[in-house]
């Protein structure tokens, strides 16, 4: 039996329908650029749709703050842009300190990020107890970023793909990329015999699975998968509007309008290359920390736990920028469990890179060459190896 491959010519091909790829597709359409996106499953069904839902600038490396600020503006206009508020709220993000050392770290971050005007307030002592009587005893204070917040990733990430489709992007779901070729001018991305997408520009937003594509073009990076452990309680009377984090990590937690508390922290376990679940011991650890942080949770029930598969690079910073080997290839992956908030900003940056070849937002810190062998060093190594023999 022969099948006829559907050939689609377009300006930009995107691999991966998470929040990065989908928001890039939308941003490109808003610039009038033709775009085809291939997603092997359903858009926003992996990390982008199953993450914690924190929309947080506070605590990010300063190198990410320009991107985070750009995204912050997109979030402000979310309903107009994607047709839903996605349960997005600027409810405040409160990072808890459990020691004076933690408080010093939080204060240092507030100073470090001052140029970005995040509006951070340090709260401790009586004020803390007055403002959040529900906090457990170990919290000595914390750092509040009032305009950070939370959203529902299950709604937001697929909505970006839908909005892109409404804006004229071709979104091909259940269409896994099986091969990609480059003839010097055009990329040809195939999904078996079903589809061949040809475009001069290719954006790699394949998340935890982006490494193979990069490697094929001579840019192997040490990308590995991570699986956050997540859990949600039954609905409880609403008591907490802040999204909580803890200095030094360990647990994060928010309460949605419906009343459920969503908690994350620790690692899940991979079931196979594509799926993961919360590790038993991680959920138990999360439970201990949750009760310590919020004693009211003691008698609440967990009703569901889950995990996802995210891409991590050793420095926990993404790769975002143009390929150093292949003209027209653009990378955007490795967001290390912190991509949701910056996603819509990344989408705009990717669209700029695809159309104009450069971004108006500084992204030098995320260049892929930080993982590539320095050509001169490589030459030196070859020389010294030769000398040793």
């Amino acid at each position, binding site marked *: 039996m022969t099948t006829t491959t559907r050939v689609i010519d377009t300006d930009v091909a995107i691999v991966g329908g998470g929040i990065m790829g989908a928001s890039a597709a939308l941003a490109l359409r808003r610039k009038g650029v033709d775009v085809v996106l291939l997603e092997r499953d*359903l858009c926003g*069904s992996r990390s982008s*749709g199953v993450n914690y839902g924190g929309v947080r600038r506070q605590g990010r490396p300063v190198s990410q703050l320009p991107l985070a600020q750009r995204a912050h503006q997109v979030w402000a206009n979310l309903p107009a842009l994607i047709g839903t508020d996605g349960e997005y709220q600027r409810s405040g993000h409160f990072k808890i300190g459990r020691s004076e050392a933690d408080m010093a770290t939080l204060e240092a971050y507030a100073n470090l990020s001052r140029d970005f005007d995040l509006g951070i307030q340090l709260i401790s002592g009586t004020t803390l107890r007055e403002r959040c009587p529900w906090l457990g005893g170990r919290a000595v204070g914390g750092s509040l970023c009032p305009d950070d917040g939370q959203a529902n990733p*299950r*709604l937001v990430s*697929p*909505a970006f793909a*839908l909005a892109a489709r409404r804006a004229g992007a071709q979104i091909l779901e259940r269409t896994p990329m099986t091969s990609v070729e480059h003839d010097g001018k055009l990329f040809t991305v195939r999904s078996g015999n079903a589809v061949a997408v040809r475009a001069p520009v290719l954006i790699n937003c394949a998340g935890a699975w982006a490494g193979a594509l990069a490697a094929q073009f001579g840019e192997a990076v040490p990308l590995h998968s991570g699986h*956050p*452990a997540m859990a949600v*309680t*039954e*609905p409880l009377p609403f008591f907490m509007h802040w999204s909580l984090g803890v200095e030094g*990590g*360990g*647990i*994060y937690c928010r309460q949605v309008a*419906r009343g459920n508390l969503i908690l*994350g*922290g*620790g*690692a899940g376990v991979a*079931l196979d290359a594509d799926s993961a*679940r*919360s590790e*038993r*011991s*991680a*959920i*138990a*650890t*999360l*439970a*201990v*920390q*949750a*009760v310590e942080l919020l004693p009211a*949770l*003691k*008698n*609440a*029930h*967990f*009703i*569901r*736990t*889950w995990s996802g598969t995210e891409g991590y690079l050793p420095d926990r910073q993404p790769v975002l920028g143009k390929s150093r080997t292949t003209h027209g290839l653009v990378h955007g992956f490795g967001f290390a*469990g912190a991509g949701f908030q910056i996603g819509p900003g990344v989408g705009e940056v990717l669209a700029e890179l695809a159309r104009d070849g450069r971004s108006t937002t500084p992204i030098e810190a995320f260049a892929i060459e930080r993982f590539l062998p320095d050509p001169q060093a490589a030459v030196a190594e070859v020389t010294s190896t030769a000398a040793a023999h």
Partner: protein
Amino acid sequence: MTAPTLQPVIVGAGPAGIRAAQTLVAHGARPTVIDEAARGGGQIYRRPPAHFARSPQTLYGTEASRATALHSTLDGLAAHIDYQPNSLVWNAQAGLLDVLHGPTQTTRTVRYGQLIVASGATDRVLPVPGWTLPGVYTLGGAQVALKFQGCTIGRNVVLMGTGPLLYLVAYQYAKAGAKAGVKVAAVLDTARFADQLAALPGMLTQPAVLAKGLYYVGWLRAHGVAVHTGVRPVRVEGDTRVNAVVWSDGQAEHTVPCDAVGFGYALRSETQLADLLGCRFAWAPMHRAHLPERDSAGRTSLAGVYLAGDGAGIMGADAAEWAGERAALALLADHGVKVDAARAAELERKLTKLTPFRQGLERAFPFPTDWAAHAPDALVVCRCENITAGELRACTRDAGADEMNRIKALTRVGMGRCQGRMCGVAAAEILAQATGKPIDQVGRLRGQAPIKPIPIHLQAQATAAHDTPAEATA
């Protein structure tokens, strides 16, 4: 290899679990039997609390001898098994089960070498407007009230839906009611009488069971209980509590005053444990469900994991006993223990012979495949999250959702305390109707731990007792 080297665990102490345990013990093994109930017997032969003084005859009627036989089998095994009642398996991974003990509010981890999952079934629910009113129960719930607590769900009760349980519960209520002043206001069966006639040939393969069914219907009619077939439930009425049921005969609507309703459309398998373990699932047309795959002996796609009873497909109590024994024999044989091959073959024959009868039941009490077409937009499908049929349809229309996990993600259907056990069947029917896809094509909700909600502080204990938690880093 000898049986004592095995480390078998059985989850569920209903007909399948008890016969499996008996078989393992007979071959020298010492199984752990984990049972969610306080006393073994399963749902169908559920035992009341120990101090209740009602005779098996009163409780189980024509099934008294079967119930008694199973109970005494389990009691007789006490010295040879590790029986853990009041224990909910809430999470699992290869070789490990997390178990919550209700009375002491503690959780512990049970290791297994081999596992027989006999997790049973719950009612198959198809909502009707008004079904969330106080006073509305499932048929199984109505029966549990009677058998376990010795009380009824109301004094003037409508029983509605379809399936053998409909008539059994009606009979039990009508009989119990004679003394207690409880009345069955009506039995409303969505199956047509013609369906039952057409099913007779297949059901004649089990004449005794068929006779029991006919006896219930005859008894009800003889005792003046209104039995209507071919009905379509329209709504349950009431302000603070149910006070009437409205049904349609296709021409006109009829109202039956009542103070309680029991309803259900046969049963659905409890498959979450098999799902968490990673058993492969397949669509089972007769059951209209995605079920864990098993061979004729009960082997799943995972080595060392076996299925028996209604948890693997609704086949009834007798089949559960045979399947439990068969799965235990398979477990033993797979691990080098010599078993009676003739007995194994006989059990498989008995199970195979039951299939025409089971198909007959489907013909006699067909699933109302037009249910979704009649479900109004305002109908609450998911009562945990208050999600209506209209919201599900809108999601399909506006966001293109065509698969169960996607519609769950976008609407919250199946995302509440029941995790889809109650609403999943109906949501799938609505999704299939809205997308125009066949029901087998809309997928199934992925199982996620915990199988049932579990208090947070118990999970904290589990860490302290059994794991050395890695330093959290996120």
